[in-house]
């Protein structure tokens, strides 16, 4: 019976290290360059998702807006918060693009068409991006030290991930029957 103690101890240490310690080891974390509030923009400015994350005329998706878009309203400070002052001083005044970290960055060999999903498929932004649009603070960006991808691609409770399995699952649920067409998504 005493012989099982080292085995159990080893298993317990491995389990605790694997579940509690591993995420800290595998991910490095950094804040976004600007303390941005989606909620403030949505509630106070009445902005909708597509006002900033717009489609271009040719149907391509603009993604994260550039500084030009921000300075359309923030040419001068709008408010007295520290975040606003930091944004004006660090980026607007020197005309320096914020180096946003994209939570949903896809691999180079993947072509994802936003317009096909949003306009044709009527998929809401929240379906893939969760409640990002109503948060008051951007979460820290957690980057996998080995793969280089964001931790967010694995999904969270209530929000599916953005892996190929997640894409295929959703397409199967919608009975789109296109999951076997490699070149639909892969370059």
């Amino acid at each position, binding site marked *: 019976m005493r012989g099982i103690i080292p*085995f159990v101890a*080893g298993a317990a*240490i*491995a389990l605790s290290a*694997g579940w509690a310690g591993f995420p800290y080891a*595998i991910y490095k974390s950094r804040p976004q360059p600007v303390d941005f509030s989606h909620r403030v923009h949505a509630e106070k400015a009445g902005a909708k998702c597509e006002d900033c994350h717009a489609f271009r005329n040719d149907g391509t998706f603009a993604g994260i807006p550039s500084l030009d878009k921000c300075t359309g309203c923030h040419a001068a400070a709008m408010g007295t918060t520290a975040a606003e002052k930091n944004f004006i001083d660090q980026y607007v005044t020197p005309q320096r693009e914020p180096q946003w970290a994209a939570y949903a960055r896809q691999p180079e060999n993947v072509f994802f068409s936003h317009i096909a999903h949003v306009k044709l498929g009527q998929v809401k932004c929240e379906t893939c991006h969760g409640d990002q649009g109503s948060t008051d603070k951007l979460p820290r960006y957690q980057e996998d030290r080995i*793969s280089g991808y964001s931790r967010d691609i694995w999904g969270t409770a209530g929000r599916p991930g953005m892996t190929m399995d997640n894409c295929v699952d959703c397409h199967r649920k919608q009975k789109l029957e296109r999951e076997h067409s490699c070149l639909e998504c892969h370059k």
Partner: protein
Amino acid sequence: MTTTRRGLLQFLGGSAVGALFTPAPWRLITDTALWSENWPGIPRPARGEIRAKFTNCSLCTAGCAVRARSVGDQPVALAGVAGGLCPFGLTAHHLPYHPARLKQGPVKEAAAAVADAIAQCGPSEHVAVLDLRPGRTASWTYRRAMASVHNGLYLAPPEPTVAVNLRNAKTVLSLGAPLLDGWGTPADVFAARDGFRLIQAEPIESRTAALADQWIVWDRPPGLSADATSLSALAQAIAGEMTVSEAATITGLPADQIQSLVKELKDNGPALVVDSEMSPAVVALNVRLGSWGRTIGPRQEAPVPESWKKAAPRTDLAAVPDRSIRVLLIDESTPGEYLPWESIEKKLAANAVVGAFAPWTQGYGRHAQYVLPTAVYPEALDDIPPAIDSVAAAFRIAAPLVAPPAGMVSPVEFIAGAAGLPASDALRERADAIHKAGRGTLVTYADGKSIPVKDVKPEDFWKSLNAGARWVDGALGAAVAAAGVASGLGGADPLVRSRPPGRLSAPAQQADEGVGSGPGGPPHYPLTIVTESRAAFLSSPLLSQIYQESNLRLAPNRIALHPTDAASSGIADGAHAFLETRDGKREVQVTVDSSVRPGVVLVVGQTDTASSGAKVVRI
């Protein structure tokens, strides 16, 4: 408590089991796989603004309109506009990165050597330009350049003098033309396909034969030196000047087949007869059928500036005296029809200077002293001559989608400079001449509009052409009808004219000799060479290289044999062998194919020809 080795192993075992129930090992496996996607050397798609650019494909004379999806300045995908693109056209944006691409050449040395040779050219010696794709604006520059030098010659493969209109045809008799396999403008041919009945006459079941409404196995095909006679017999049978049985004897076709063919061509008109080169005999047959002005007419050309018309005419290589060319400059920068080097070599003087302008070294570059690198589609700025099925005159430019690398040579500038022509932008001058003529329509693919040229300013006309638009003469059809028989093609009886000999066909007297000779006598040549006809441009090294790499079709370095013949020659599929005729032998790779008829060796060529007297020898 003491630590024993057993305890340590139990601890490690427990750790391993425990670890399996955590995400750590599984995530490490996944992450390692993802990390491997980002290894150095793995191609990365370009990033940047996505734009659409329009141009025209210059790989062949079809000149298909192309929409290029570009990321920044880099084209990443090509697609057809209002029609498809062939596999070559779809992947043409990869051509500049071909590993065999020529990137540098002895430009200064070549210029000096050519200048010296021109200066020392004797009174009976010639300076010549060989243009593999005549009919371009560049061709006009070469002709002007050769007109301005002493004893200048402009050499080029023969251009068709007629254009065909498949849309008007109800019955088409194709004498071995690869009508449904890259002939003319393939998209237009297939668009018109439902409107006509196609009868394909050739000895092999080509792709066109397989897709035709009727395939006539013509064992004595046109090209075996008897084509004019056969076609003349067919024409006379149509006109009732010869009985069907007489025509059958001459053509080698069964009498009932001749009868049904004659009936079909006469009753289900307008009819059209085509072959690979639109030879005079075929044109004459069309005239007999009453097709002139309906399905066939003179070829139209876009206007050129008046000052260009003092240009050297095209000279047939065969007409040039042997050992008389002192300087030969060959433009093979665009795919075109190749002339055998043996026929060129005997025309060269002993101290001839030969320069080839080419993106690769596999073509004439193997024989030239100077090989100068050129831009390749889609880097090169060039215009595209009209295809055989282009009834109206047209002008379209292959506008560059990417910048050529440094060190590329423009053959037009080099040759014009060597001949002392003043530097000019010939394409722009020609566009201005077309605009000045004031007729025709500008078709822009970016917005799908057609605008009469007279409503467009010269500057906008030029800009549109460089953005992939094309000019089409508005006198479509009218010119064909107006020219009619008075064009001269219908006047003299072209049936008596001889057809240009097939490039790979043996002379008739040779073809009939020696067949069946036994051991000890003359060499025994048991096989008949049958040439699979193919659009001329596909024989270019530029594209045949792709054939050789892909093996999708019979490449120019390959032959096909029936398994029985391969076995009797002791040759396996894929083996290297010599294809031997009385004229010589060349190394080939053998494809064993049961669809090839026994006794036949199938090779690739530009015309449908057959000649007896060949054998395949195992290396």
